[in-house]
């Protein structure tokens, strides 16, 4: 089967950019990626119908000269389905934006709970009264990566110390050492 280069190159480009967009975290780009991949697949279907011919069932033509109508019917169905799904996805993203003011796919909270539970369980035995914030704050996977700036505002532990234990905040000098060791353990 010979394939027209004019169809093959756009298909490859559409697949490549579609996959690239699909791997982004922003939902809007994911939708654009899905649309591109869908169209690339439609082009693939069109290519599979062989060389272009005259309109089928046109009067007075040889059947051999016809374009294959089946893939075109399939493409039409696929286009309608992609259209419906895109409309649904757009509504979904809009709803997600209304709820969370966030265009990115969020990490599942239960997954985070399961992933961080073991470290907490391991600490349970020696988790005495002395320092109440042994369980290091679970890293928030949605948070932006930590800044490398040495002059950055106070590190996050202070915030958690204030929230989770009054003692630590009152006696920073005494608990300071334990705090840091506790954190390194918890971080593993």
């Amino acid at each position, binding site marked *: *089967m010979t394939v027209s280069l004019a169809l093959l190159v756009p298909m490859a480009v559409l697949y490549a950019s579609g996959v690239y967009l*699909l791997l982004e975290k922003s*939902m809007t780009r*994911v939708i654009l990626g*899905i649309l591109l*991949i*869908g169209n690339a*697949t439609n082009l*693939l*279907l069109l*290519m*599979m*119908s062989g060389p272009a011919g005259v309109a089928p069932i046109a009067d007075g033509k040889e059947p051999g000269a016809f374009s294959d109508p*089946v*893939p075109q019917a*399939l493409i039409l*169905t*696929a286009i309608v*389905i992609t259209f*419906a*799904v895109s409309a*649904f*996805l757009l509504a*979904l*993203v809009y*709803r*997600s934006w209304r*709820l*969370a003011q966030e265009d990115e*796919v*969020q990490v*599942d909270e*239960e*997954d985070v*709970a*399961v992933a961080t*539970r073991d470290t907490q369980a391991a600490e349970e035995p020696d988790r005495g009264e002395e320092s109440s914030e042994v369980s290091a704050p679970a890293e928030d996977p949605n948070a932006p990566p930590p800044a490398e700036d040495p002059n950055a505002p106070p590190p996050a532990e202070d915030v958690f110390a204030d929230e989770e234990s009054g003692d630590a905040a009152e006696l920073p000098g005494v608990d300071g050492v334990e705090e840091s060791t506790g954190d390194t353990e918890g971080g593993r």
Partner: protein
Amino acid sequence: MSAALPLVPLVVLLPLVAAAATLLLSRHEHAQRWITLGVLTAVAVIGVVLLIEVDANGPLVMDVGGWPAPFGIVLVVDRLSALMVSVSAAVLLSVLLFSVGQGLADDDDDTPVSIYYPSYLVLSAGVMNAFVAGDLFNLYVGFEILLIASYVLLTLGGTEARIRAGTTYIVVSLLSSVLFLAAIAMVYGATGTVNMAQISERVADLPAELQTLLHVMLLLAFGIKAAVFPLSFWLPDSYPTAPAPVTAVFAGLLTKVGIYAILRTETILFPTPELNEALLIVALLTMVIGILGAIAQADIKRMLSFTLVSHIGYMVLGVGLGTAAGVAAAIFYTIHHIVVQTTLFLGAGLIERVGGTTSISRLGGLLKASPVVAVLFFLPALNLGGIPPFSGFIGKLGLLEASVAVGTPLAYTLLGAAVAVSLLTLYPLARVWNLAFWRPREEVADYRSVLTAELDENPFGDSQGGKRALSRLMIGATAGMVAVTVGLSIAAGPLYDLATRAGADLQGTSRYIEAVLGGDR
């Protein structure tokens, strides 16, 4: 021509028409409910009639629009299709009763009434269409119908958790659909047809590499839908957030449609054994990794989702063995698993009702609080674990016998893994039993009864306790499903024979091809 032939398109047509009707009647909830109930009952009856007819007289083939087979669209009902249609319709009906009982339709703000029944009916139509499809593209359309309905059901009410879970689910499903469509395009390019019987005739003439490529593409697309490891990551992430009945029907049916498609691919489209070993390895990984995931979970619904993934491995094992006995065992196991997994998710829905949560660390004393729920959870849990008198045991025994019959080292490895995974399945289920049912309520660390929890949220409101009580219909629907699981165990002999005949139908492509394309009809 058989007298039952006109019934074939009805299994798809009735739910679709009813969906349109219920959408028009969106303000009349009673009418919606009765239409849905009536139509699904009718489909279940038709399924059984088709099953009896097909078992006696051979496959029914319907040329839609009167166009003869290779040119028009065909609907094919053989024993496997009829079996799947009947069981699915029964499951859809029980889950519908459960959701009516739960008052999903009226007193839950998260779930708007008017679109629930239409989406549910469209989902049914999609599932049925996939089961009776005689060509690949119609199978694709069936998948799309059920997927789009499932998107709506999964994100029902549009709460934040459901939107988040729905996003993952939709993107992954879309990817698998695109893969499937691309595979169809390639199959059409290679064979010039999308009719499964005709593909089966022509595929043997293709170069071996091209065959492998098409085969792998189809299996990848179906593997995502069936949640076969490593393509299963999306399932435990997205199922648990949906309303209990929706999760139950998804868990029971949607992955099994994928398994059904894999069965058809392996037996009719590509009967060659070239990928069987790969399937067996994938089955092994699915079983083991799925159950390890289940052990790590503290939430009942998530735990059940992981056992679902794990037990998909058993069905893939049966298919991967590539023998008639393996396929028969896989069919029986699929039927068993549809019913049992749905029942367990309904049981989880009951637990959520009684205990206010599905997290086992916060549940306790349920055995005293509600012995009925305990029984309704215990029986299917034993069944899933494969305890002897139940159908789970019979299905697993069939799979093990088929593995022994094959006798390669890989088959024996899988045999060992299947036994081990079956034991491991009992562990998370026993933990649920120990913590949620047996543990006295006083031992739960931060126990909050449903009533106090509601008082905390809404101190000045009226007591909602009565509303949260178990309705008789929910119990009845779940008890009905439990009765079906027990019935499957009692009637296992005839059912296994039927599964064996269905499996035998799939051995050797000539019968299917003759039924669809054969000359004088």
